[in-house]
């Protein structure tokens, strides 16, 4: 569905991303992992069309992203940004309605089909019970689910989430992780940018490791995130363990300097 090859991104005069690959397919969850500042978010933003790539190729369903502008692209992929704005006075239902806008022309009103899609999106993300609450009164976890509902209202076959769990507590992170996994199982192509390697290992079909502006490894989590990889990329002495029901653990020798 998404195929990005050799993506290069330059912001100002600084090359943030040198060459990175990212492939996402229907029904699969791919996690993009890597240290701070490695270019994970930049890669996700470029793949989602929010950041222009200066070189490389990005295509959605075989069509180059340069030819997919605006609402056409919005019907192919939804994007959940890292730090969305939380405006005053806006209710959950209004926010999710905004997510439906690619389907509504400039001078049209919402149709029954649009209202149904908004309803379904809220149901799926589990926010129906607070549809009438103001965004400013929600907790971080609730807010993140609303963001997912906004994205689902787009009814795009792919979903890119940029660090949706980075400000959440353990329970809220797990809830978001389960939801994203379920969405992939429903047939969506999910790209998840995430810091937490244990979480990535539990939910992802595949991980892409980004380091210093390059994608350095890709494949099933336990095959890729080996002790050698963790030492190389994160400079830690650590290893991952996985069990049933997404039971994962990251064992780290916190006090050993590995540089």
């Amino acid at each position, binding site marked *: 569905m998404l195929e990005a090859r050799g993506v290069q991104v330059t912001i100002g005069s600084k090359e943030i991303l040198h060459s990175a690959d990212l492939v996402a397919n229907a029904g699969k969850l791919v996690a993009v992992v890597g240290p701070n500042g490695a270019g994970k978010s930049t890669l996700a933003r470029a793949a989602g069309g929010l950041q222009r790539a200066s070189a490389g190729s990005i295509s959605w369903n075989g069509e180059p992203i340069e030819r997919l502008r605006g609402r056409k692209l*919005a019907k192919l992929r939804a*994007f959940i*940004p890292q730090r969305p704005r939380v405006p005053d006075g806006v209710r959950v239902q209004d926010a999710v309605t*905004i997510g439906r806008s690619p389907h509504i022309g400039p001078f049209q009103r919402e149709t029954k089909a649009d209202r149904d899609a908004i309803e379904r999106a809220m149901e799926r993300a589990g926010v129906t019970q607070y549809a009438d609450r103001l965004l400013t009164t929600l907790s971080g976890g609730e807010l993140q689910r609303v963001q997912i509902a906004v994205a689902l209202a787009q009814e795009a076959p792919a979903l890119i989430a940029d660090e949706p769990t980075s400000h959440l507590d353990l329970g809220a992170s797990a809830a978001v992780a389960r939801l994203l996994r379920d969405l992939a199982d429903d047939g969506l192509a999910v790209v998840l940018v995430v810091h937490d390697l244990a979480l990535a290992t539990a939910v992802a079909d595949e991980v892409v490791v980004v380091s210093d502006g390059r994608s350095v490894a890709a494949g099933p989590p336990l095959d890729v995130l080996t002790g050698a990889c963790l030492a190389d990329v994160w400079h830690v002495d650590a290893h991952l363990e996985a069990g049933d029901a997404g039971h994962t653990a990251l064992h780290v020798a916190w006090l050993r300097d590995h540089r």
Partner: protein
Amino acid sequence: MPLRRLSVVMIAAVTLVAAIGASLALGAVSIPLRDVIDALTGNLDPGPFKQIVTELRLPRTVDAILVGASLGVAGALLQGALGNPLASPDVIGVTGGAGFGAVLILLVFPGSIALLPVGALVFGLAAAAIVFAVAWSGESRGGIGKLILAGIGVQAFFFAATTATMVIYSDRVQSAVFWLAGGLVSEGWTNTEAVWPYFAVGLIAAAALMRPLDRLALGDDVAASLGARPRLIRLIACATAAVLASAAASLVGLLSFLGLVTPHLVRLAGGTPSHRYVVPVSALVGATILLVGDTLARVVAAPVELPVGPFMVALGVPLFLWLLRKTV
């Protein structure tokens, strides 16, 4: 539409109709309402009453409605586009530019007083153009912080130019003071005829911007991912506000307080930030406030006219503060 929002619209509409009646009937000379209606429908015999209604009070009433609506809409557009509750025509430099344009004509070229509205309009737009040219340059083009800082800079520059002009021509300052305070005049249709196209273009553009502005509510990234173009929308909304505020300044001087307060009143009273509600209702409420203010300013101490700008601020600020305390 929920009852609360509907009642705000109804109250404003009824008040506006009453204010139109009062504005046409009251003043230095009181004219019976029946004569006012006859004058408007062409059934009144020519005479001083007819002349006062159709040539003095009607144009002034229309000006108040146009200007009030435009300032309300300009404020709603700016606050929406910049996502900042402090935004008003001051923020994009229009007030400073228009003030300087007017003072330039009033003090330096008093012989060309007919050019006053043009001067205010042109300099208001020019100031906004400088702000936009700076804010839409470089890496962070179209960023809100950059736009606001550029606006404050340009505003300060034009205020300094205005002050300097007033110091240099201090013997003529009298004529500029009334204009800067903001107020309507009874001078017939001449000025309105010159600037109405700007109001028309601005108000039509504002109507088309309501839904795009709603889509900016969750931030630029969400808007962009939904296929909108946040920076372009922001530029068009700010440019539209600049046109409306400059045209307003050209008719009544500096009344930017109305642009700041009206959208807040509408949001607080209506309980929704949606632009599809705030923009049109700000037009209605802005028109109502200015017309009520102007009518009171003419009537309270008749035949002396109080300057409507300071008068309206003196009345509006307590109301605004009361609403602010009550709701937030």
